[in-house]
């Protein structure tokens, strides 16, 4: 980089001397971006197609309304796991989202304080801890102290896994909200919390939802931490202090079995899980854009 010139002036300088090269570079690089998108779409479509292809055969109405059956017993579904996953992921969200968003406001407002630095380090380190370790941690804290497995301990493990993703994304999105918006709100005499909730959060909403959805998508598919916490349950249960079935755990159990019947159900369950997360995403995006329109309308 030419140190004496600002990039803008450097650009002007080059513009005079080498207009054609710049145009070619521009075209080539932009084409490469398009190519990157194309490259990424291939495994994407491939893996999703494979899941559909392997899983769709085992899908039926019963699959959504019945309980699992053992090998050799026809029919059977994953109702308990669908409900169980909803409960466990719900607990994870209820813990993680409020904590992450509130902490993100702290980091946003005071990034260079000791606590701010510590929070950022913590989230980055937490994001690299394997999920099974989080499962063991929740096992120590909940299962060993209470003496039994529970939906709650599973939700707790997932909450820790989810937190860095939501927190980090929220922080980055808040930082990108133009400072003028915040200053304007504060200048009008709004309290910090009002500014945060009514100005900053709505302005960053789209990105925050991305973070939350990435977090949910991640934890909804985690099987490893479920073994020692939510444990699994072949029966229908909604009790928070009892073992509960979850979709990823069900996928895992089915996938490692020797029987074709169960292996097919593993793929079908994965298909259901992906569809459910996607449905949630569509709803979240829908609500967000509806809110945004409402705000603009005012």
């Amino acid at each position, binding site marked *: 980089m030419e140190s004496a010139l600002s*990039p*803008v002036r450097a*650009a002007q300088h080059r513009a005079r001397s080498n207009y054609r090269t710049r145009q070619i570079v*521009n075209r080539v690089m932009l084409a490469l971006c398009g190519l990157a998108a194309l490259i990424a779409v291939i495994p994407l479509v491939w893996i999703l197609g494979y899941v559909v292809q392997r899983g769709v055969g085992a899908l039926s109405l019963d699959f959504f309304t019945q309980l699992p059956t053992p090998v050799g017993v026809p029919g059977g579904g994953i109702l308990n796991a669908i409900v169980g996953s909803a409960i466990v992921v719900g607990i994870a969200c209820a813990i993680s989202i409020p904590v992450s968003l509130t902490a993100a406001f702290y980091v946003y407002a005071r990034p260079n304080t000791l606590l701010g630095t510590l929070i950022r380090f913590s989230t980055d380190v937490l994001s*690299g801890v*394997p999920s099974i370790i989080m499962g063991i941690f929740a096992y120590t804290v909940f299962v060993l102290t209470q003496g039994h497995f529970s939906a709650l301990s599973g939700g707790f493990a997932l909450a820790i896994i989810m937190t860095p993703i939501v927190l980090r994304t929220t922080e980055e999105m808040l930082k*990108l909200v133009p400072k003028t918006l915040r200053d304007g709100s504060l200048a009008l005499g709004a*309290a910090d919390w009002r500014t945060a909730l009514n100005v900053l959060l709505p302005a960053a909403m789209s990105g925050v939802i991305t973070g939350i959805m990435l977090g949910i998508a991640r934890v909804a598919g985690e099987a490893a931490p479920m073994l020692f916490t939510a444990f699994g349950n072949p029966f229908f249960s909604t009790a928070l202090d009892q073992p509960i079935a979850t979709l990823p755990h069900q996928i895992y159990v089915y996938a490692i079995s020797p029987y074709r019947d169960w292996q097919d159900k593993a793929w079908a369950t994965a298909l259901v899980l992906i569809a459910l*997360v996607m449905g949630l995403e569509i709803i979240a995006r829908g609500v967000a854009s509806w809110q945004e329109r409402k705000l603009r309308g005012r």
Partner: protein
Amino acid sequence: MSVIAEIKRQKRNSPWSELVRRIEHGDVIFRTLTVVAGLLVVLVTAATGFELWQNSALARAKFGLDFLTGTNWDPVIEDFGALPFLYGTIQTSIFALLIAVPIGLGIAIFLSELAPAWLRQPLGFLVELLAAVPSVIFGLWGLYVFVPSVVKPFAQFLNDNLGFLPIFQGPVFGPSRLAATLILSIMVLPTLVAISRDVFLAIPNAQREGALGLGATQWEMITQNLIPYGLSGILGAIILALGRAMGETIAVTMVIGNNLDLSASLLHPGYTMASIIANEFTEATTDLYREALIEIGLVLFALTLLVNIIARLLVWRVARRIPTEARA
């Protein structure tokens, strides 16, 4: 209320009523909540590290620092060393990011700057859909579909043409560090793409108009204005992706071949720290064995910390070099 009346009222305020006023205003509560939430996050992390430390005491006492350089992992005679796993984790996650970051940023740029409006939503959706695929499914797909049809021929190609490089030395296996690297690079894409796309979208249009107005090409606008402006957010995405790559268990375990091999070659089977924990923790029946696995977790924890410190230092240096005009 007139201004004078307001001043008079404020003069009457005792420290106590000042406190009451501030509580009514809500900011004290809000700030306390943010501090509490922040402390919780820090505490949970510290508690995780502490538990890992405390519960690996036996292994730490027995192997000391040799644990980090030990190349043997033998549960029968209980001799444990972390080097093959440390090496595998670092190698696979670095190469995975080297592949995923340019592609991920390319897609993010494509989605936010180039793609026609009708394509943005569906394509973005598709990428986020990938985030919802459970890792065991990635693993099975990788093992049964991706490795035989893509990784193995690709590895053979690399070995045939670039076999003189140590990292592409034969013999060629399907399940290998290369397979793990490629699977990881696919798995981290959603995080990279979704966050950096949102970062680009959040950059005010004035940035773009300014650059284009001064005659920059679109590519120059992206590299000289948008990327520096959104650098912090993009790095955040990269760090989350790195965390995912280092901590991923089942999918990697399925395709990496699980071998203590320490050669430089990407085409050889290897092992990662997360895989050895996932593989052996549930069946580890003696105290020393289990604690050695927990110490692997501790090493991974420390490695993540180290990587993040390095990353912050780098960011700090880069940030100083970027002219302030671009960030205004």
